[in-house]
């Protein structure tokens, strides 16, 4: 068993920042990540980091924009923390040497981004995430922070008191991908999840293959509620054949969207008469799909994004990367012709419920980054708000886990504050498949349900978790026949993309639940074909698929329950935002295998003011 | 980490000298070839002819310099090539000293020959 004060799961922007912060507080910290840190998907972020750095801008404006962008489903304390800390954290990156683009006076450049009232998106070409990730990894090297790379975290070691709020997290169980060894990692102070997004739930996504939402699923099964899972952001400009993202920066710099008739669609059809192409992402995504559905799409599949008028010099200076992406992945030279684009899954607003210090309702368990939901983004994230989220909440979670006093959080976690029970009418029972044989082991859903009576020590909790995971892996490896994960995964992705996409309707969502149920049942028969213990990606992906299933189901359940149209969540039957009934977060608890739906209110009271829900128009 | 590698003389002097000698050699080698194959034909070489040339101080010193630079350049090149192939430790030092000795022998032998021609340093 390995032992550290703080263990960070995941080495993207959030994980790296958390580890650095914990170390600065004097903790012995280690990162466990299934990818080498520089392979994390944070590297793919292109556009930039929102931070109110300049004269004429203020964190209050940033907060206002964020709240408005969230369609009033963000929690004010989280949003305000983000906007207050972001300038400092962004400059911290600069002090660590990050290669930001520069203005003539030598200061870092900022550009306009969708939904922002001030050009406050601080950027490094069209490769901001890459620069950020590498800059932080460099700090890690400098500090000599231990990284267990290519270790796949299988599960959390959480004690099992009856009520999740009483449980505590003592470590993790991880699998060394190179050697096939399963090991316990004891965390004396805390475990921080920073496992990134769940893009693989969908088949057309800007996310990496490794973005399978593992952290969210693990926390969920340990008893932490998932929050606002139905809010999935679809990015309006992804390349049709691969899902590779074309940054919003293109539109920020002046790129224009055209439909098949060469009409500037955002204005021509009144989707956003003021902001045009720079309207919020959900607005633009729907606009494009509406065009395509109305037969004005090109090849009935996509629209055109044109930036030729910006001139080669400006394009190369600020968006060079885009030229390469478009050429390599779509075979289109954007200096010569417009780029084909269509909406693709991009970001999950929801995730592991945390407060503004990154803490979940389980003692010693934290989450930060895309896998977490302190609720900064509410129902829709503004471009350029995820990277600051990584560094702001990454730092806070790291520091808090290492014992720094950050004050009491205003956001309550778990069912500690106000909450109400929810109900949703499902065609099939969601949740774990109860089967008489040992296939529940394959599921990984088993928890020794002794109600905490064993009052085990931290070490025992970890050891027990290791045993459970060993059983699961042995089961998967010894099973000789059955279904392979790839089939299940691709069915789930297809169904999700078909039914739980930009446009959602009741029957489709129900169908998705039926499909998911079937997939879950098939999963109990899953087996791993590759018998090797060395670098067995077959096994890893089989386990990931289980996580994808949980997340897909949560997303669909939330989408079915929420019968209103808010932010990224569009419902055919409900074309209005319903503040009366739905100014609340969708919460989903695993509850020993059957998802329990409940709600908690949105916090709109900020430090100095209360945010009044307004019509969100651009 | 970095300390692991910092066992070496600084400055890449050998690298620089390799270039400097190369630049020098281009000229001299071309001259040498030209003189001994085009101006004077190879089959006409005799002791006397060589002797005549060697007796001029300029030519004599040029040849000595030629010898030394070529030796350094060549031997250093060989040494580099071996390091590039990953030769290290004792084996490398053995090779290194062998090369140094061989160069010394070469230069001494060359100088002696030149002196035999010129009959002493042609002052």
């Amino acid at each position: 068993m390995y032992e550290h004060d703080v263990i960070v799961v995941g080495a993207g922007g959030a994980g790296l920042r958390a580890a650095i912060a914990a170390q600065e507080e004097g903790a012995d910290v280690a990162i466990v990540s299934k990818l080498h840190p520089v392979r994390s998907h944070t590297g793919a972020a292109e556009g930039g980091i929102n931070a109110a750095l300049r004269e004429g801008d203020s964190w209050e404006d940033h907060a206002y924009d964020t709240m408005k962008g969230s369609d009033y489903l963000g929690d004010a304390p989280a949003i305000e923390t983000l906007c207050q800390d972001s300038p400092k954290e962004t400059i911290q990156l600069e002090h660590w040497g990050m290669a930001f683009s520069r203005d003539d006076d030598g200061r870092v450049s900022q550009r306009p981004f969708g939904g922002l009232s001030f050009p406050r998106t601080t950027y490094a070409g069209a490769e901001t995430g890459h620069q950020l990730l590498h800059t932080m990894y460099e700090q890690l090297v400098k500090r000599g922070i231990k990284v267990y790379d290519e270790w796949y975290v299988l599960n959390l070691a959480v004690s099992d008191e009856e009520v999740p709020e009483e449980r505590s997290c003592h470590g993790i169980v991880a699998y060394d991908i190179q050697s096939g060894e399963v090991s316990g990692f004891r965390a004396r102070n805390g475990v921080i999840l920073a496992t990134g997004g769940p893009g693989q739930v969908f088949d057309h996504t800007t996310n990496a293959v490794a973005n399978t939402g593992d952290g969210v699923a693990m926390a969920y099964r340990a008893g932490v509620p998932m929050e606002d899972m139905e809010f999935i952001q679809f990015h309006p400009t992804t390349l049709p054949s691969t899902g590779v993202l074309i940054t919003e920066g293109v539109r920020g710099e002046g790129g224009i969207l055209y439909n098949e008739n060469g009409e500037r669609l955002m204005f021509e059809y009144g989707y956003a008469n003021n902001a045009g192409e720079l309207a919020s992402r959900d607005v633009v995504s729907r606009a494009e799909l509406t065009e395509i559905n109305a037969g004005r799409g090109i090849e009935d599949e996509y629209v055109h994004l044109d930036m030729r008028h910006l001139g080669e010099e400006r394009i190369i200076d600020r968006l060079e990367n885009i030229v390469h992406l478009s050429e390599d992945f779509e075979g289109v030279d954007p200096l010569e012709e417009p780029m084909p684009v269509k909406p693709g899954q991009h970001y999950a607003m929801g995730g592991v419920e945390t407060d503004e210090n990154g803490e979940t309702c389980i003692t010693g368990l934290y989450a930060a980054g895309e896998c977490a939901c302190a609720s900064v983004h509410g129902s829709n994230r503004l471009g350029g708000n995820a990277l600051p989220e990584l560094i702001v909440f990454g730092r806070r979670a790291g520091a808090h886990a290492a014992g720094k006093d950050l004050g009491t959080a205003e956001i309550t976690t778990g069912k500690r504050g106000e909450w109400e029970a929810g109900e949703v009418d499902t065609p099939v029972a969601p949740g774990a498949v109860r089967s008489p044989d040992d296939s529940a082991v394959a599921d990984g859903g088993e928890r020794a349900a002794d109600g905490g009576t064993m009052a085990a020590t931290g070490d025992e909790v970890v050891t027990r978790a290791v045993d459970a995971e060993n059983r699961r892996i042995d089961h998967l490896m010894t099973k000789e026949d059955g279904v392979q994960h790839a089939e299940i995964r691709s069915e789930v992705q297809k169904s999700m993309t078909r039914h739980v996409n930009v446009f959602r309707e009741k029957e489709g969502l129900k169908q998705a639940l039926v499909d998911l149920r079937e997939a879950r049942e098939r999963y109990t028969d899953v087996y791993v074909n590759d018998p090797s213990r060395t670098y067995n990606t077959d096994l890893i992906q089989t386990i990931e698929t289980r996580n994808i299933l949980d997340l897909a189901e949560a997303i669909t359940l939330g989408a079915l329950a929420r019968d209103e149209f808010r932010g990224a969540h569009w419902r055919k039957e409900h074309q209005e935002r319903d503040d009366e009934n739905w100014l609340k977060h969708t919460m989903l608890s695993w509850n020993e295998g059957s998802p329990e739906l409940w709600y908690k209110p949105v916090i709109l009271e900020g430090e100095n003011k209360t945010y009044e829900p307004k019509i969100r128009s651009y | 980490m970095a300390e692991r590698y910092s066992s070496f003389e600084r400055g890449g002097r050998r690298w620089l000298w390799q270039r400097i000698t190369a630049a020098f050699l281009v000229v001299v080698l071309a001259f040498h070839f030209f003189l001994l194959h085009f101006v004077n034909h190879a089959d006409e070489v005799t002791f006397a002819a060589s002797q005549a040339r060697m007796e001029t101080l300029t030519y004599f010193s040029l040849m000595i310099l030629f010898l030394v630079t070529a030796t350094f350049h060549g031997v250093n090149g060989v040494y580099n090539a071996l390091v590039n192939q990953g030769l290290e430790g004792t084996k490398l030092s053995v090779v290194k000293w062998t090369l140094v000795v061989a160069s010394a022998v070469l230069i001494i032998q060359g100088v002696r020959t030149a002196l035999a021609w010129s009959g002493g340093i042609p002052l």
Partner: protein
Amino acid sequence: MSQSYNRGLVEDFGRWREFSAGMWAWIFHKFTGWVLVGYLFTHIAVLSTALTTPQAYTDTIQMLEMQPIVRILEVGLLAVAVFHILNGLRLLLVDLGVGLEAQDKSFYASLVLTGAIVVASIPTFVAGAF
């Protein structure tokens, strides 16, 4: 790491077909360099016959130069030297950061030029031996 597999030949020699200009240049330069050092040593050895008697020297040289094979080898030496010089110049330019984009072209140029110079010199080199 105990789990290693040495792909030895497959990867080292099986790859020569895929070598690019810069790699060939490196190989040729290395080869020619070694030939030149080899020659330098032989050369001095031959010349140092002058240390015994002047006549011995003249005899040795003339005997050698009479042999066609030696003349042919000399042409070979010329080729080697010329290539080494030309590519050496190319490398010097590269070290100065000049014309890096044309590095492959300059390598081909060295080859062609070497060929031309050698062909042009053959008459002078073999004169009197055949």
